[in-house]
Each structure stands twice: as structure tokens, then as C-alpha cells.
């Protein structure tokens, strides 16, 4: 019986150009011995994921990316972005964008809410591409290993907010700021524009969510995500590692202030994106 990595590899070989395959071979990861890192990331599956996401990235959502030149090419860092659109397409677009725009390619490790790793198929698919469950221990291990984290500080209130609240940031949680200060990692704010309009929901059913062990199930107004254009704006990295010592991570005031700065930076990037985009689909 063929192993899944072989199938993934075959698909990636078919779908991705040779140059991209060569580039992905340079991907650094901590091989725990069988082609997977301890969290389940596999370069074969990263290539597979890129092959699956690329048509969406290039042709369906036609992503435009600005400021990715400032992404740290090595060392620990935290990408903090706004979350929207009822399903985490924003995470997939950032994941693909970072993979494309880093040399050698870096796999951004998305920190997902607790329930995501327990979702059948989805949890495993995302884990092979680098996602990890949102526990302090996981984030700490990855930062200590010099990885690049993707955190949505709004959490599920951000992705599940009603359409009328689009582009209104929910209160940023503080874990990303604390982790960044403690581990000397810069925070890269990212404003995502386009995601809010991809899948407007009529309402979100908390009752259905409880049945599936998730926060809520959005009931969409359209059968499929709309072909909105995605705009990703990367801001200047906030050098918390230069301003604070690791001990400051225990000071609630410092942590709250940094989280507030990150939120303000993301909000400014969103405003810029909204002002610059010609239209939702353009």
C-alpha cells in the first residue's frame, strides 16, 4: 500500500513547476527521523499543500502581497494578523505567501485554536503543512527552535464575527506579545483585506458548534467562497526583542501595551488596504 507522502509527492511533482520544487527542497525543518518533524510537518506535504493552494492563491483569490521583503529570513518571529471570513482561507493565503517570499523557503507555523487539531482530516492536513494546536507549550517549543509563527490574536471571535462588523478588529489577546517578548522574537503585523467578504454568513450557530465541539458553525449566504481579491500587507517588524528583556514578559502592563501596539499596527495596515483597493473583486 503506497504511503501518503508518496502520493503527495507525486501530486506536487505534477502540479508544481520544477523551479518551485527545487526551491522547496531547500526548506529547513527538524526531521525527527522519518521525514516528519515532531509536530507532524512533512516537506512532502508542504509541497502538496502548495500545489493545492497555488491555484486558489494565483487564480481564484489573485493575492497581492506588499511588504513581505521585511519578513525575517531566519530566527524566531511572530506574524500577527487579523482573522476573518468564517473559514481560515486567510491563514492558507498567508502560509502560501510566506512560503513563496522567503529564501530559503520558510513554513509559517500557524497556531490554531484548540479544536482544530481534533477535527478529522482537516486537523491532520493542516498539521502536515505546519499547523500546531494553540497551547503555550507548542508555541514555546517552536520559538525556541527559531520558527516563524502565525497567530491570529483575535481568535475565533475574529473569524466568526458578523458581516456588519467586517474590518473591525476584535480585542487582541496577549499571548503572542508575551511569547515574543519572552523569546526575543520580532512581531510582524499583517493586515489582510479581502477575507471579510469571501463568505458572508447569515448567522453563526453556536448550538451546531457545540454538537461538533467547535465554537460555532457559520451558515453562509453563498454556497462557495466568493472570488474576492486578497491583499496582504506586511508591516515593519516590531522589535520587542530590542526594547524588552525576557523578564518583561511577566509584566502584564508591558504585555498589554505591546499587544495594543500590534493591534494598532494591524488596524493601520487594514485601513491602508481598504483605501488602496479598487474594489472587492478587483
Amino acid at each position, binding site marked *: 500500500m503506497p504511503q501518503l507522502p508518496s502520493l503527495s509527492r507525486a501530486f*506536487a511533482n505534477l502540479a508544481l513547476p520544477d523551479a518551485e520544487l527545487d526551491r522547496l527542497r531547500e526548506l529547513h525543518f527538524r526531521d525527527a*527521523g522519518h521525514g516528519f518533524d*515532531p509536530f*507532524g510537518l512533512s516537506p512532502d506535504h508542504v509541497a502538496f499543500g502548495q500545489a493545492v493552494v497555488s491555484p486558489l492563491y494565483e487564480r481564484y483569490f489573485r493575492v497581492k502581497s506588499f511588504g513581505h521583503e521585511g519578513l525575517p529570513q531566519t530566527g524566531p518571529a511572530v506574524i500577527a494578523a487579523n482573522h476573518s471570513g468564517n473559514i481560515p482561507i486567510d491563514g492558507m493565503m498567508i502560509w502560501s505567501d510566506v512560503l513563496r517570499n522567503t529564501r530559503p523557503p520558510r513554513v509559517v507555523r500557524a497556531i490554531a485554536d484548540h*479544536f482544530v487539531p481534533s477535527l478529522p482530516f482537516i486537523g491532520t492536513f493542516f498539521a502536515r503543512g505546519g499547523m500546531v*494546536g494553540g497551547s503555550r*507549550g507548542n508555541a514555546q517549543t517552536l520559538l525556541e527552535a527559531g520558527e516563524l509563527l502565525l497567530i491570529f490574536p483575535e481568535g475565533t471571535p475574529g473569524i466568526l464575527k458578523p458581516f456588519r462588523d467586517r474590518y473591525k478588529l476584535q480585542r487582541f489577546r496577549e499571548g503572542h506579545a508575551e511569547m515574543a517578548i519572552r523569546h526575543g522574537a520580532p512581531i510582524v503585523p499583517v493586515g489582510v483585506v479581502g477575507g471579510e467578504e469571501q463568505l458572508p454568513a447569515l448567522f453563526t450557530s453556536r448550538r451546531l458548534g457545540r454538537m461538533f465541539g467547535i465554537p460555532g458553525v457559520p451558515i453562509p449566504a453563498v454556497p462557495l467562497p466568493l472570488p474576492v481579491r486578497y491583499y496582504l500587507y506586511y508591516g515593519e517588524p516590531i522589535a520587542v526583542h530590542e526594547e524588552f528583556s525576557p523578564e518583561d514578559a511577566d509584566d502584564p502592563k508591558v504585555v498589554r501595551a505591546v499587544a495594543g501596539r500590534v493591534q494598532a499596527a494591524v488596524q493601520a495596515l487594514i485601513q491602508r488596504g481598504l483605501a488602496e483597493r479598487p474594489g472587492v473583486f478587483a
Partner: protein
Amino acid sequence: MTGGPTLDELLASSGHFADPGRRVLVTGASTPLGERLVRLLLTDSRVAHVLAITGEPAESFVVRDPDPDRLSVVQVDMGKERRIRNMLFGAARDRGIDTVVHLAQHRSAHAQGSRVHAFNVESLRAILELAERHPTIRRLVVRSDSAVYQMQRDLPVLIGEDHPLNLHGVLPQWVQDRVEADVTACARMGLSGLSIVVLRMAEVLAPGTGSQIFDYLESALCLRPAGYDPMLNLLTIEDGCTALVKAIFSDAEGVFNVPGADTLPLSACINSWGRVGLPVPGGWMTPLYRLRARLTGSDFRYGMNRRRFHYSGVLDGRRAREVLLYVPSHPIAWPGEDDAEGLSQP
């Protein structure tokens, strides 16, 4: 079915200790891990004597060319406190034992009752109490198990020694006993002159070790819950012995994870073992494996392993690496291993 370097190579690689004349007692010496450890210690010039404690008649414990001055074998029922007392203050005192390695655990996941509990937990409690006032014993190395850790979706994948313990709900006695024994040993640390080390070992993938995964892989068709493919970490007997030897000769105290060299997804584990994996709805797993246990007498209990068939859990061996200088270096010799090259191996 484990591979790696030979016993001689293993010995050569562990020859940097400088603590001659150790006199070591090994309980559970007739288990695969215990037997290999006794053989390893006997070929180590820094060990003056090994007292092997077995549950079977002493004559059945066979070691090639045994040196009667360096090895003695005693049959002791570890489920009886009086027998343990007699052994520790008899044979062990007479031989000047300074280090006890406690490996005796009931291996069957289906075994239960007070007799099993006495074997798994009360024997360790007795050793702890008696060793503290023993005239020659100074060090106790306890083999514990990764099964003591809680597996839950909101807990870290990489399991450190401070990870929550498996005290969740109604657990099989196999797990309960292991957690209780572990906590019992930890609770006595630092309270007396006895130096205690607890080694929480990853699952040893070998026959006769009580390995649930080994029993699971005995079937040609291995069912797994559809949509889940958690990361596992597995240990070989060679690496388990290496960790035990390092713990015997170290001065360190405390709890240490002992991971193996193999970290891989469940599906890759099934494939590498040359088995066919079949994803089925999660709800089918318990009744199907219960049926298998009844029909074939197998020891694998899906209910006991349900969480680790859903959530990844890999032991973090940093503390053992830094303090005991233990690094897993003996990967499993997988019978179904192919040499296909992936993206990571251009």
C-alpha cells in the same frame, strides 16, 4: 524485531563512566528489557555484581558463561511485601547492593485486581520504604512509562516532564497503577538519603514488553480512526537499556523522559511495519478491537489508547540529554522500510 548496533557496540559506546564497583539489583530481570540490562551490566567492568530478581524459577534465567561472583539470580514474588523485605535485607544486603533498578511491572493490559496492584504499585512502595533504611542501598532507578501522561487536544504535542498526568476519569488499572507508582516514587524524592531517578520511557516496540502498539501491529490489518494520524514516539530495548545504564551511573535525581529514536505518524508506523492500515469511523474501533481481543486473545485495548490514536504526543528528551547525556541512537529496524526518497532527501 528491533535492530541497531550489537550489544558489544552498545557497551563500547557507553564506556566513559568512571564509577567502578557498582553492585546493582534488577527487578523484572526476566523481562526483555531486564534481561538485556543484566547482560549489559555483566559485561561492564564498572559493575562488581548484579543481583537479578525474577518471577520465574532462578534456573530459567539463562546467561551465557555466567560468572558466579558477578551474577546471582533470585526468584521473588514482587507482589508480596514480606518476600521483598526478605530479599532486600537478605540477598541484597549480603551482596552489598548499592543500586536498585526497578523494572517489574505487570505487562497485561487486561490483568486487574489487588494482586496486580500489589505487583505494580505496592512492590515499589515497599522498595522505597525499605531502601531508605537499608544499610547499603543508596540509589533507586524506577522505570516508568509515557502512559502516565495525559493526552488531550489542548495540551502540547511535545511532552515535557511537567506535562499533566493521566488522572482523567475512569482509567484501566494498567494506566492507574503506572500513574500511582510514578507519583509514589516522585513523592519520596529528596525526603531521605536515597537518591531516586524516575525514567518515563516511550513505548518499547518489542515482543514481551507489554507494548500495546506491538500487539496492535501483530494484526495484518490495522484499523485506525479515519481522519486522524497522530505522531508517535517509539523506543528500542537498546536505547531503553542505554538510558538505564546512564541513570545507574549518574548522580542526578529527578524525573526524566526517555524518548526513542523513532518519531513518526501512526500511518507510517503501520506501513513501515509491513501492515495494511485501514481508516474506519472512530466509533467502530472499540467494538472491533474488543471483538479481536475476544477472538484472538490479543492484549491491545483500543479504549485505553483512544486518545493517542487521535492526538499527537512525543516525549521531549531535553532533560535526559542535558543531565543524563542520554541521546536515542538505536532506531527500530522496520521490516517494511522502503528507501524511497522524499523532498527532504533530494
